């Protein structure tokens, strides 16, 4: 490893290519920490937004008009307003309304930090789209298949969980994939409420070290790899779910 750092350091001296965020231990550590924060943020939001999508699509099939109306209102709100404004709303408007708790030093601090608000805001944002995506899949499931499950004695939740959802997922996976890729990229927006994720740390480094160009290239490469790995995993999932004679 030391050899590599020395090589990168020599690039700076010889050509002025400033990769200090790799060879300097302090910068490297905080950049890696930022990347880890991005990964945690993205993974949490992916899981939560998919859960919102699954539950929301289930509630849309409810017999209760109020529930359906509630889900519809939620979708309209989060789909038709800018995600950055939503994040500001959660962090700056809702955040201060929340009760404060005392930390171990006896100082009152907000109940939820910026990371938690970023998770909430991004999950709700992507979740609204996921509901619509799952709904399109649910609607593609044949009524007759549902009727057969009904006649076998399955209850509504079992029908959804065991029959409708597994079939719907196979139909809507490509669209879901797209939305989740967007979600992962939108995690950079957490910069705006000072979540120490990759973009936020990168901007600190390029301000301190004046290596904007190199940091940008590093950033883009990181996201290219992150999203690339995610898409690869999703493609594998899609392939493992393939069923002979269905949807081909």
């Amino acid at each position, binding site marked *: 490893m030391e050899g590599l750092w020395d090589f990168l350091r020599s690039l700076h001296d010889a050509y002025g290519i400033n990769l200090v965020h790799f060879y300097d231990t302090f910068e490297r550590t905080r950049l890696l920490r930022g990347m880890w924060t991005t990964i945690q943020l993205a993974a949490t939001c992916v899981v939560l937004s998919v859960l919102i999508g699954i539950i929301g699509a289930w509630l849309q099939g409810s017999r209760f008009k109020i529930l359906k109306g509630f889900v519809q209102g939620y979708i309209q709100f989060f789909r038709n307003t800018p995600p950055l404004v939503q994040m500001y709303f959660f962090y700056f408007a809702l955040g201060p309304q929340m009760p404060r708790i005392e930390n171990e030093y006896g100082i009152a601090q907000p109940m939820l930090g910026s990371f938690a608000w970023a998770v909430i805001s991004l999950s709700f944002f992507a979740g609204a789209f996921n509901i619509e995506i799952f709904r399109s899949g649910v609607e593609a499931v044949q009524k007759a298949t549902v009727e*057969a499950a009904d006649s*076998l*004695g399955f209850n509504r939740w079992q029908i959804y969980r*065991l029959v409708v959802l597994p079939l719907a997922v196979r139909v809507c996976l490509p669209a879901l994939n797209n939305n989740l890729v967007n979600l992962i990229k939108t995690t950079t927006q957490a910069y705006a409420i000072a979540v120490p994720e990759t973009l936020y740390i990168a901007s600190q480094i390029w301000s301190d070290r004046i290596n904007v160009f190199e940091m940008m290239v590093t950033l883009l490469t990181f996201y290219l790899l992150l999203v690339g790995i995610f898409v690869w995993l999703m493609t594998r999932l899609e392939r493992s779910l393939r069923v002979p004679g269905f949807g081909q």
Partner: protein
Amino acid sequence: MTTAWTPDQPIVGIKDVHKSFGPIEVLKGVSLNVRKGEVVCIIGPSGSGKSTLLRCINALVPINQGSIKVEGQEVHDPALDKLELRKKVGMVFQSYNLFPHKTALENVMMAPIHVLKRPKEEVEAQARGLIKKVRLEGKEDAYPGELSGGQQQRVAIARSLAMNPDIMLFDEVTAALDPETVKEVLVTIRELAEEGMTCMLVTHEMGFAREVGDHIYFTDRGIIVEHGPPATFFTNASDPRTRAFLSQIL
């Protein structure tokens, strides 16, 4: 509330059932009784309400008026335990309606495991037996998309049987099949009938109805026009509508 049902009473008792879809009255006062072990065939032109009648029996479709009793239990009682009813009544559909993401064996095993909460090993043994019974040995791990229509329909029959129903409803189960595969499905149904399973069939297979049916009902425009045992029904139909229908078919 309900008096205990005994096998000498009708297992299915239908009395003056009316059913409308919007302004269209599909059933206009249908009554019929089925005894345990009996095979009843319902024939009639398309749109005469045959399939609707079957769907009413296991409460897939609510009725507007009248009474349907299965083993003494009123089906259209709001307090009905639908699960109890559906354990007793199995149904097989025209379009098979298998779960496309499950193998043949899994299709048969799903309901007993999730609905009846029976242990998996026991259900699997039963399911393998049923697949064998419908002559699909070796196809346990095939997905519905890999099976022919006749094979899928036999899996659907096995899937219903896995719930150990007392009554089987067959809704035009051979209508979507090509002539060669019709036979393999009919053989399976005939075996069931011979074993004493109570069966109600909506069918266009007159020859089959005549052969396995204990009682034939002819419906037209929402009413039962005529009924009787096959021997008299097919040779001595008295109503002109029945005769007109039979002359077109036979």
